């Protein structure tokens, strides 16, 4: 693995991700003002004391953005990790055990996927109390259906391979087969999928917050900042676009990295056939 072999697009993605994660981790240290601190007039233009201007309540937009990175990234990451653990565990179980377990889990998954994610989330969030852990859980469960579908497909592909059959015939237990035979062979597609699910979680969380159903104010998250400042648009104030651009930027960076990862693994498999 050489540094030179990483293409420019992937570098852009890696650097972008690094900046976002740095902001998220060290938000209180690098933010010039407090998260909820009113520091000036509303919707001040960019420049001067406030690099990105102020928001609809006169808070520093840059500081809101940095704190927003923390909330957005941690919530999205938590939801993705949870959705992944759930999806991978269930899908591998379905693929290895087979039979009725597989049928049951797969049909439930089909049913959940037949309702569009956003619509499903709206229905469920209409009933449940507005709390952070519930939001994360809902995002995770809904998203795990996608992970399940991929995980099962990948695991079934590996399960039918003869080395798995050989392990079964040797008398190996189920845990050995899942963790030692199947998992190592599914890591690269799953890793790429993790990136994509994370990008989706960022977009999804932002959309929910934008609709007023995600993170609740006064806590800052990128979708919520868009919502707070959307009324400024009519007056030509671009404050709402800045967090929007941050969301887009993060998603693009993740996609760039995943794109490169996928190309790398697929070229590993590629080989010339018979001459």
């Amino acid at each position, binding site marked *: 693995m050489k540094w030179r072999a990483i293409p420019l697009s992937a570098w852009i993605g890696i650097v972008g991700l690094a900046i976002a994660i740095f902001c998220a981790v060290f938000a209180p240290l690098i933010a010039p003002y407090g998260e909820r601190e009113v520091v000036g007039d509303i919707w001040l233009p960019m420049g001067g004391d406030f690099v990105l201007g102020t928001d609809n309540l006169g808070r520093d937009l840059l500081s809101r953005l940095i704190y927003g990175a923390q909330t957005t990234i941690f919530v999205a990451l938590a939801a993705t990790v949870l959705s992944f653990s759930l999806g991978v565990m269930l899908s591998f179980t379905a693929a290895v055990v087979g039979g009725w377990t597989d049928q049951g889990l797969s049909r439930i998954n089909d049913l959940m*996927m037949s*309702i*569009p994610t956003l619509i499903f989330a709206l229905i469920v969030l209409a009933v449940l109390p507005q709390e952070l852990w519930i939001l994360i859980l809902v995002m995770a469960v809904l998203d795990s259906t996608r992970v399940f579908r991929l995980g099962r497909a990948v695991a079934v592909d590996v399960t039918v391979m003869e080395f798995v059959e050989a392990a079964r015939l040797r008398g190996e237990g189920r845990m050995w087969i899942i963790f030692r035979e199947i998992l190592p062979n599914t890591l690269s597609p799953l890793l790429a999928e993790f990136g994509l699910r994370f990008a989706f979680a960022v977009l999804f969380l932002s959309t929910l917050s934008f*609709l*007023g159903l995600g993170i609740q104010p006064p806590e800052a998250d990128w979708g919520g900042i868009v919502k707070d400042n959307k009324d400024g648009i009519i*007056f030509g104030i671009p404050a709402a676009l800045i967090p929007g651009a941050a969301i887009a930027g993060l998603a*693009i960076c993740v996609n760039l990295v995943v794109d490169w990862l996928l190309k790398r693994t697929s070229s590993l498999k590629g080989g010339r056939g018979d001459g």
Partner: protein
Amino acid sequence: MVQESGPAGTGRAPQGSLAAGLSGPSPANDSGAPSGRGGGLAALRRRMPLATLLAQRLGLSLLLLWAVSVVVFLGIEALPGDFAQTYLGQSATPQAVANIRAELGLDQPALSRYLEWLGGVAQGDFGKSWASGNSVTEQIGLRLGNTLFLAFWAALVSVPLAVGLGMLAVHFRDRWPDRLINVVSLGAISLPEFFVGYILILFVAVQGGWVTFPSTVYAGMSFGQRLEAIILPCATLVLVVLAHMMRMTRAAIISVMSSPYIETAELKGLDTLRIIARHAAPNAVAPIITVVALNLAYLVVGVVVVEVVFVYPGMGQYMVDAVTVRDMPVVQACGLIFASVYILLNMTADILGILTNPRLRHPR
């Protein structure tokens, strides 16, 4: 498939069900593997694979619709939390909660309420809104048309554009137009709808002053006025689905173009035009139709956010408002309708896929 459409899957469109749609209708008599189950169904399937598969697919959709109604109504009931309590908020007195429960009929057993609701839905009656007391059906009647109007025009613009761009990318495969389209679409996939929407509003409506914002439509507007009102929301939707549809189209065409029968055609000395028209097109139609139908299904959902951004009086706006005030009859009605359209379009994709499969059209 993974490689081609990989990063496209920011989860926007139901990328998973594309694979299912393509691989789903594989004929039972294809492999000759141990699939012969004997019995009546297998015999029927051998004789009329097309009719059997279509009937199966239709049946599956109906079953799904019913199951969705169960999830939307009974599944929600099973969640922790009391409708009346959440509706009134945490500070409500027990007496007020009991009153509202009785008023809304929530003191009845869930199953009997479900059956009553389902009976109403079957006759087109979605009950009354808790918030306004108005008939939900009436409200939906006013708004569904608006939403479909918007989605229809977005589809009309985006489908030919996406397929055209996809073909263009394949034609210039691995040269700069393809790379450019690839990079731009990779970026476009990552843009949230509201971001695209507000950029358009800021630059086109506010600073440019070319169109009006918000995109209100009301009764009595002429067709031309309506069309003008939806220009921006329509453009937003197009931008949002375009990239995805284009990438999937490109992948579908490339997969057909790399099949051995295209090599055969090349080795017959046919010219490019004939290879594409006669040998690639008939086989690419099915996957492209699937791509289009799946993205249309997404379009119908993407409309929710776009309607909120543009304050457009459609189903999405209605549903989001109802969710905010926890107006369950409206939420359930909208949820069921959105899910039905989604299921319907997915089914259409599968059925068209089955119909365009020569193996099924001409059984042994």
